Structures are given as structure tokens and as C-alpha cells.
């Protein structure tokens, strides 16, 4: 049976089985020392490639100058037993041996062209004001009183800096797409793009696919995200971790004890204590939901649902409109039909402004749901109003059954019962009908909703997310 070093070496030579690779990565995740040992092997592997490919390149260069000695690659090429795959591999490897030197030259060339392009715009190369190695942006602040230091919207932060809030709420957007919202009093250190420390306060983190591994340390516990949304509250020397979506690893520092928490689970950890499972309670994070979702303000009946429970179709209230974000930022892979695409007030179906949001667009989606109580017998009618303001322009509203049902699978997660025909706006123009308005700046939606027995009002809001980092693509 292979020991772990054998598996590491086999893996680095691309000769390990899938089960061995799975075991290796599980071992790497078990503790940081394992990860460092693996990194040292990989560094040696990389240094060997660099050094020996350099020697090989020098040797080939001498051969090309007249020595005439065939290289191993050429010898192999002359053998009929060599597969075409190996041939390709050898050719590509030769390309690699030049790459370590070549990337540098190529990089310089590209840099020069980028700079040349900039010069053609006659724009100076201006380094934005930022802290050393900044990797996150202050996206929103609400009623913040800072302790030490002071930050404003759009400031870049990171590089070991610490945010200290005496009160208020701050939302940070990391370059990796991670979205962290803090509620003061809180102290939060940004160590690296993937590693942070919360010394006190309340935090929620939303970690999109591809940014998994984001870690928040508290004095009591290390919380490592596995692609999820979670919250941490530090209170009286105890850290409470609540998982809203996906999974997180919670581990005691300097101890082998760790536990995997899943959606809807919570754990409490005091200094030196064990990890204790506790009841999930989203209430402490209630003030953070709208901010972490990119909602600037609301008036009237709006109530923000936590990302738990996921299914909201059974949430009912006679006077509240529930707001639920649907997952992470999505890049549309095909056009999306919306019923309202232009600012204005809409009370009749025939006056809607249908259009399509084009494919390739980055969007966030929200469900607005008015779902009054009913006992199934008495005839009832409920009406409510309110307005909600987003931090980005609204690209379109989906308010009719056909488009709601058609778009349901494209924004999975909330299952608001879009398949039911009576879950839509009733734009009849009469007193019992619904009225919806989109402001001229496209950021505010006003709703005046009425819902008779068994009916509920459902709106899907498509908000522009251009420039957000929480996307599938990170390329230039």
C-alpha cells in the first residue's frame, strides 16, 4: 500500500489513480501542515522542471549550432512505437521548456502593447488610491461609526488591514467574488484574499462557486467555506456559526477537532470548548440580509427573508412582501424574456413593455412575493404597498405567469411556486388589481398589490450585475 509521499509523487507525475488523488486532497484539507508538506513537494517538482528544462534548452541550442546529435525527442519521433499522443506531448513539452523564459518576454511584449493602447487613448496610467495589495472594495456603508481608520464607498482594502466598526453596517466585495457584510461593533482583519479574521461582531459571507476555501478565523474557531453562505456571531467569548446555504468546515485551532456543518445547521464554540451543535437561528443576521443582497433601502411592507428556508412558497403574511435573493450572480447564456423593460407605472397587462435581456449579461435575480394568509373557506382580500431600491439598475421585471414559469429554472434556489398560474401580478386596471412602477433611474420598484383568496403576487426582478466579480468568468 502506498504511503502519502508515494501518492504525492505519483500525483505530480500524473500517474495517480482518481481514488489516490481524492485521498490526497482529503489529507491536504485535514490540517495546514499537510497542505504545506504538499506545497513543498510541488515546489521541488516545479524547481526541477525549471532547472532541468533550462539545461535541456541550452543543450538543444548547442545541437542546433552544428553538433548534430539527435535529441531524445527526435529519437523517439523516429520510432514507430511512439504514439502520436506522446509525440504531441513531447512537442508541447519542448514548448514548455521555452515557456518559463518565454512567458517573461511575452509578458513584456503584451505589457508594452497594453501600454501602447493606453497611450493611444491619451490617458495617463493612474494607480487608484489603495492600500498595499488591496483585494476588496467597500461596496456599501450604512450609519457607520468607525473606530480606528475610516473608509468610504469604493475604497480598496486588504493587505492585512483591519476594519474596526463601532456601529453600523459595511458590505465588502472581494476580488474573488466573496461578499462579506459586517455589523458593528466589529473588528475584521483582511489577511489575504482567501483568509480573514473576525475578532468581534457579526458577519455574513456569501461565497460563490469558484471561490470555495474562503476562511474566517475567530478567536475560538476556524471557519472554512466549501461554497456557501454563512454567518458568524461573536458574543461573550463564544463564536456561533450558522450555515444558510451549502457547507462549511468548522475546526478548533491547534486541535484535530473539526466538523462539517450543512445548510440549516449551527454550532457554538467557546474558548477551549468543543464544537457544540445548536439550533439554527437566522434572526441575529436579519439586519444584514438586505445589505448583503445589494438592496439600498425599502419602505412600507418589504421584509427580507434570509437565505433560509430556501423554499419560500409557504411563507405567508397579510401585509408583508417578502424579498428573497436568488443565488449568486449569473451570466445569462441565452436571452431572458421580461414583461417590463422601461421605467413607468403599469396597471394593465396591455401597457407592459416586454423585451429581452440579452445573453452574456451578468445579472442578479430577486423574488418579491406577497402571499396572504387564508383558511381555505372564508373569502378574504389583502392589500399592501411598498417600494424597494436596489444598488444597481433594474434591467427588467417578470410579472406574468408564462415568463415567471419559463425563467424559474434559470434562477434556481427559492422555488416560489412559479408553476402555479395564480402566482403572478393581476394587471386588470380595476380596484382589485395590482400596480407596479419602475423609477426613471431604474433603481426603485414600487408595488401596490392586492391578493384575493388563494392568489399571491409574484415578481422576479432582474438587476444589472455588470462589473461584479461573482461570476463564472474571471478573464480579462
Amino acid at each position, binding site marked *: 500500500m502506498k504511503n502519502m509521499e508515494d501518492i504525492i509523487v505519483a500525483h505530480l507525475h500524473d500517474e495517480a489513480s482518481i481514488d489516490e488523488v481524492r485521498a490526497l486532497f482529503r489529507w491536504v484539507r485535514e490540517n495546514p501542515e499537510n*497542505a504545506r508538506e504538499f506545497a513543498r513537494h510541488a515546489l521541488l517538482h516545479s524547481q526541477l522542471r525549471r532547472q532541468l528544462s533550462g539545461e535541456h534548452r541550452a543543450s538543444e541550442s548547442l545541437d542546433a549550432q552544428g553538433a548534430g546529435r539527435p535529441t531524445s525527442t527526435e529519437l523517439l519521433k523516429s520510432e514507430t512505437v511512439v504514439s502520436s499522443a506522446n509525440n504531441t506531448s513531447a512537442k508541447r513539452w519542448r514548448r514548455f521548456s521555452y515557456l518559463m523564459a518565454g512567458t517573461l518576454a511575452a509578458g513584456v511584449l503584451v505589457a508594452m502593447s497594453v501600454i501602447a493602447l493606453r497611450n493611444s487613448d491619451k490617458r495617463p496610467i493612474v494607480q487608484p488610491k489603495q492600500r498595499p495589495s488591496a483585494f476588496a472594495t467597500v461596496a456599501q456603508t450604512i450609519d457607520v461609526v468607525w473606530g480606528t481608520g475610516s473608509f468610504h464607498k469604493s475604497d480598496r482594502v486588504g493587505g492585512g488591514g483591519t476594519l474596526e466598526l463601532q456601529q453600523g453596517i459595511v458590505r465588502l466585495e472581494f476580488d474573488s467574488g466573496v461578499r462579506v457584510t459586517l455589523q458593528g461593533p466589529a473588528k475584521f482583519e483582511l489577511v489575504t484574499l482567501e483568509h480573514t479574521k473576525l475578532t468581534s461582531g457579526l458577519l455574513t459571507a456569501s461565497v460563490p462557486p469558484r471561490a470555495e476555501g474562503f476562511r474566517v478565523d475567530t478567536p475560538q474557531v476556524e471557519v472554512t467555506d466549501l461554497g456557501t453562505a454563512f454567518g458568524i456571531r461573536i458574543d461573550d467569548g463564544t463564536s456561533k456559526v450558522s450555515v444558510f446555504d451549502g457547507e462549511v468546515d468548522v475546526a478548533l485551532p491547534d486541535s484535530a477537532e473539526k466538523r462539517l456543518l450543512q445548510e440549516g445547521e449551527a454550532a457554538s464554540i467557546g474558548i477551549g470548548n468543543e464544537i457544540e451543535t445548536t439550533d439554527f437561528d437566522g434572526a441575529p443576521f436579519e439586519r444584514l440580509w438586505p445589505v448583503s443582497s445589494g438592496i439600498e433601502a425599502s419602505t412600507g411592507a418589504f421584509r427580507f427573508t434570509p437565505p433560509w428556508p430556501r423554499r419560500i412558497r409557504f411563507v405567508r403574511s397579510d401585509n408583508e412582501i417578502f424579498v428573497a435573493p436568488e443565488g449568486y450572480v449569473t451570466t445569462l447564456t441565452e436571452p431572458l424574456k421580461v414583461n417590463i423593460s422601461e421605467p413607468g407605472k403599469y396597471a394593465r397587462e396591455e401597457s407592459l413593455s416586454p423585451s429581452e435581456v440579452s445573453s452574456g449579461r451578468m445579472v442578479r435575480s430577486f423574488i418579491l412575493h406577497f402571499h396572504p394568509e387564508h383558511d381555505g373557506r372564508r373569502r378574504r382580500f389583502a392589500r399592501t404597498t411598498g417600494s424597494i431600491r436596489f444598488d444597481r439598475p433594474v434591467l427588467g421585471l417578470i410579472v406574468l405567469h408564462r415568463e415567471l414559469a419559463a425563467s424559474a429554472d434559470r434562477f434556481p434556489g427559492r422555488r416560489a411556486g412559479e408553476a402555479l398560474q395564480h402566482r403572478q401580478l393581476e394587471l386588470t386596471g380595476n380596484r382589485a388589481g395590482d400596480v407596479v412602477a419602475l423609477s426613471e433611474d431604474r433603481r426603485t420598484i414600487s408595488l401596490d398589490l392586492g391578493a384575493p383568496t388563494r392568489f399571491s403576487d409574484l415578481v422576479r426582478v432582474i438587476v444589472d450585475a455588470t462589473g461584479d466579480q461573482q461570476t463564472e468568468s474571471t478573464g*480579462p
Partner: protein
Amino acid sequence: MVWCAMEREQVTRFTNLWTHAQTSVFAVISSIVTNFADAEDVLQKASTIAVSKFDTFDLDGDERAFTGWAIAIARYEILRYFRDRGTDRHEFVAKSLGQIVDAFNEIGAEHIERREALNQCMQQLQGRSRDVLQKRYGEGLKTGAIARLLGLSAGNVSIILNRTYRKLRECVDGRLAAGVEAS
């Protein structure tokens, strides 16, 4: 003319920083993407993105900060590589990549010492061990191809390769430990 001065300064800065960082960046990539040719492609993409995004890197940042920044770029290219191929490795690679990147950042300070120790240790290698290592790392040949060239069995090449690698690893660690004790 002011522009020209800035261009040169920026290009020189990038060149110096990338020279320092590229082995670490490739180490991260090749620790996950173990097919040489594919790892090469990922490195190339990461370098192109690093150039195009260089103006978002704080020019006051040091070499270590740049290496961390470049590794962060490489991280996304690694995930993109697995995602695009839809392999069953994507899930557990994604789960572990954060810890691996952290580990590389943590051992970043050892990089130069380890390279110097490796140079010393390589001088002790001779004969068949050196040939096999050269063919594997220098020419990028797989075990079977090396076996055909040297007239050995693939198993034999594998044993020589692993033994030589282990010897080098122990030599490098020994030199570092001796260096720490001496200091």
C-alpha cells in the same frame, strides 16, 4: 517623453516581479494540473491575465505580494480548466484549492533557500539517476518513453525516478535544517 519613462518603468517592474514569481505560480498550477502540457497552457493564460491586470496591482507591493497576487489569478485559471473539462476532479480540487494556495503563500519565504539547496544537491547526482531525471523534467518524457530510450522496463524507470526524487527531497530538507541550526 514622460509617457515613455513611465512605460519603461512599468514594463521593467512587471518583468522583475514575474521573474521572481513564475516558479511559484507554476508550482501551484502543476500541483493540481498534473498534465505538463495543460499546466503549461494554464500558466500561459495566467501570465497574460497578470499583464493585462497589472495596473490593478499596487506598485508599492513587494515581490511576495506580487507572487500572492499572481497565484490568485492562477487559482481561477485552474478552476476554469477543471470546470471547462467537466471532470469529476473539479469538486474536490475546488474544495482544497484554498488551503493549497494558503500553504504556498506560507512557504513563500523558503523559496530561494530551497532553490539554492536544490542546486547543491543536484551536483551530487550522476549516471543513470541524472539521466532519468533529465529526461523526465528536462524533456518532459513519461516513464514509458524514458524506458524505451534507456532500454529499461517502465517499472525500473519509475523506481529510479522515485528514489532519485526522494533523495533530492531529503538532501534539500537536510540542507535547510542544517542552515537553520547553523544560524
